[in-house]
């Protein structure tokens, strides 16, 4: 077969995607290698992040030139990232399922295009807009209404107790993320639901199913794979979201959240907030440690993705064995 320029072009382009991914990982790994050696495993379990004294002469610690007092531990940010994403998905997935089913089955046909357009529009709103809304509307609401309410009603459970002085923190960040995740997940599930054949639905009705039963028993099982895919998509957005979370997280460092209202930091937001000061570190160890955070964030994303895919495959196998 003759190699046409078209074919070569396509091979080049398709090879570029994994190529870029590998290049990014390689760059992060090579660039952060001194930090990986300097930090060791303490990086993942340490709670203290300290750039050290950038205004004093650097000192040699374990063979590495670092600012005096430098110490890099990111447990706080790992916990912040996973906790906000988990809470966001916990709320977003049921809501998205409901909205998607409503759009597919509960809405008169004439209204459907308009409503689904609104959902898709929500997905393209820049994150800084959600962040600003979080700062000006949600945070005061959490501080003055939600947090005191939780304290009064559910205060006997430690994570709901104590109230919140500022409204910035875990719950606010999670809710902002929820708002950003719902449109993506909804749109994906909705488009999958539209593919469900009429015969499946009619079969369910023929067996005497109500609309709700038809939706939950016939439609949802048919799009199970798409639902997991949609959740992965939403999780990806939640794990990596930077600006909106930075604005409402409260920017906690050096301590773990104790309640839903505690200030937190996520890995992505923390990299952004620290990068400029880190660049002033003449030894470069601070920037390399930030690159190491990026590497860890990437690895976490891959693990979460792989786990979700395994679950999907398990579901398919389960369905097949039942059939």
């Amino acid at each position, binding site marked *: 077969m003759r190699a046409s320029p078209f074919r070569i072009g396509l091979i080049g382009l398709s090879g570029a995607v994994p190529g870029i991914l590998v290049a990014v990982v390689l760059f992060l790994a090579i660039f952060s290698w001194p930090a990986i050696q300097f930090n060791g495993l303490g990086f993942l379990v340490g709670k203290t992040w300290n750039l050290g004294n*950038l205004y004093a002469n*650097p000192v040699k610690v374990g063979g590495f030139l670092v600012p005096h007092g430098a110490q890099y531990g990111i447990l706080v940010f790992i916990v912040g990232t996973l906790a906000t994403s988990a809470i966001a998905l916990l709320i977003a997935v049921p809501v998205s399922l409901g909205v998607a089913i409503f759009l597919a089955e509960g809405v008169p046909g004439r209204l459907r295009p308009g409503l689904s357009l609104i959902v898709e529009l929500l997905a393209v709103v820049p994150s800084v807009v959600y962040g600003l809304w979080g700062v000006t509307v949600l945070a005061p609401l959490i501080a003055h209404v939600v947090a005191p309410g939780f304290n009064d009603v559910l205060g006997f459970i430690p994570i709901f107790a104590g109230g919140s002085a500022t409204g910035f*923190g875990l719950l606010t960040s999670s809710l902002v993320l929820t708002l950003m995740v719902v449109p993506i997940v909804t749109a994906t599930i909705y488009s999958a639901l539209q593919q469900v054949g009429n015969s499946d639905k009619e079969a369910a009705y023929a067996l005497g199913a109500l609309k709700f039963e038809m939706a939950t028993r016939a439609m949802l099982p048919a799009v199970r794979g798409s639902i997991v895919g949609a959740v992965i998509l939403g999780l990806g957005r939640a794990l990596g979201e930077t600006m909106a979370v930075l604005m409402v997280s*409260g*920017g906690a*460092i050096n301590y773990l959240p104790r309640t839903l209202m505690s200030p937190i930091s996520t890995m992505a937001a923390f990299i952004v907030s620290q990068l*400029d000061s880190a*660049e*002033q570190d*003449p030894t470069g160890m601070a920037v390399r440690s930030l690159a190491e955070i990026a590497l860890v964030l990437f690895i976490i994303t891959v693990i979460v993705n792989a786990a979700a895919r395994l679950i999907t495959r398990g579901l398919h196998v389960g369905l097949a064995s039942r059939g």
Partner: protein
Amino acid sequence: MQTDGGMIVRRRSILLGTIGAGAAGVLGLGSRPAFAAEISLLETGSTLLYPLFNLWVPVYTAKNPGVRITTQGTGSGTGIAQAISGVAQIGASDAYMSDPQMKRDPDILNIPLAISAQTVNYNVPGFNDANLKLSGPVLAGIYGGKITHWNDPAIVKINPGAKLAAHVITPIHRTDGSGDTFIFTQYLAASTPEWANSVGYGTTISWPPVPGGIGAIGNPGMVQASGQTAYSIAYIGVSFHKEIAGAKLGTAMLQNRDGNFVLPTPKTVGAAAAAVEDKTPADERISLIFAPGPDSYPIINYEYAIVNRRQPNEKIAAAIRDFLAWAVDPDGGSAAKFLEPVQFLPLPPKIAALSKQQIAKIGRTGT
């Protein structure tokens, strides 16, 4: 048939080639600023200097139509970093660069443009008009997590008569790299040995864990967070005095080196500047924090333009020199009509002369 196919492929490859050449042409054009009729400068950094640059730039560019200046309030850390990397021509910073940094980037100049101060503001309902008194050790206690309530004996002792209730203090700090963090923590370090030995100072520091204490982005973020959080405390650049008043925050009287409690006024800021100006070295990197003298306000600083003295070409260098020289000129950017609205003080004549010497050093690569 075969010939036809070959023709199509050939035509496509010609098309691809044309697109490629077009793209290269566009890229080539973009990398040659000499094509531009105007000179564009980017100023980025300190949110404290940002309001002043926004007063300066329209007036200056009206007089100099060949120059376009973009201003950004991104935090002093960004200002320093982007001046070094070359993204910005002028980095605005409330902090000067450290010795180890200067060793790494010896071509970077730290040029004072004006004298600024920082206020410590609080939101304690009922006391926001009262100018509560605070000292370095008390602030170090609050930000260090040792003083947690407004009725702590250390606060009550210096505010006799103020009936402060047992409300939890929410200390607010800057999340982004900030010259305000730099000068605030310098005050804590200079006045409180314990803080100097444990936390130290910098544009970003490792804040002691104070559960409930939060970070905010930029001076605007500090004003907003403090305004909507009762019983909070924050450190904010004096150029935000209008926003501070708008949020109805209280301004603290701070204890100076001589033990007196003072508010930031032209008199107290000027007294502090006069006490330390003679110590300013030729490269002008010096802390003005915690100056001696009975009237000296303890948190003042030079506002710096961070500039690489080796610019890509002489045209850009000349534009930067001209703008900065105008900025420190008492008849130009340092006139009262610019500095008073942001409550900055002009540089004393001696310091302005030092700044002009540094501005004259800005040239092109290879000089």
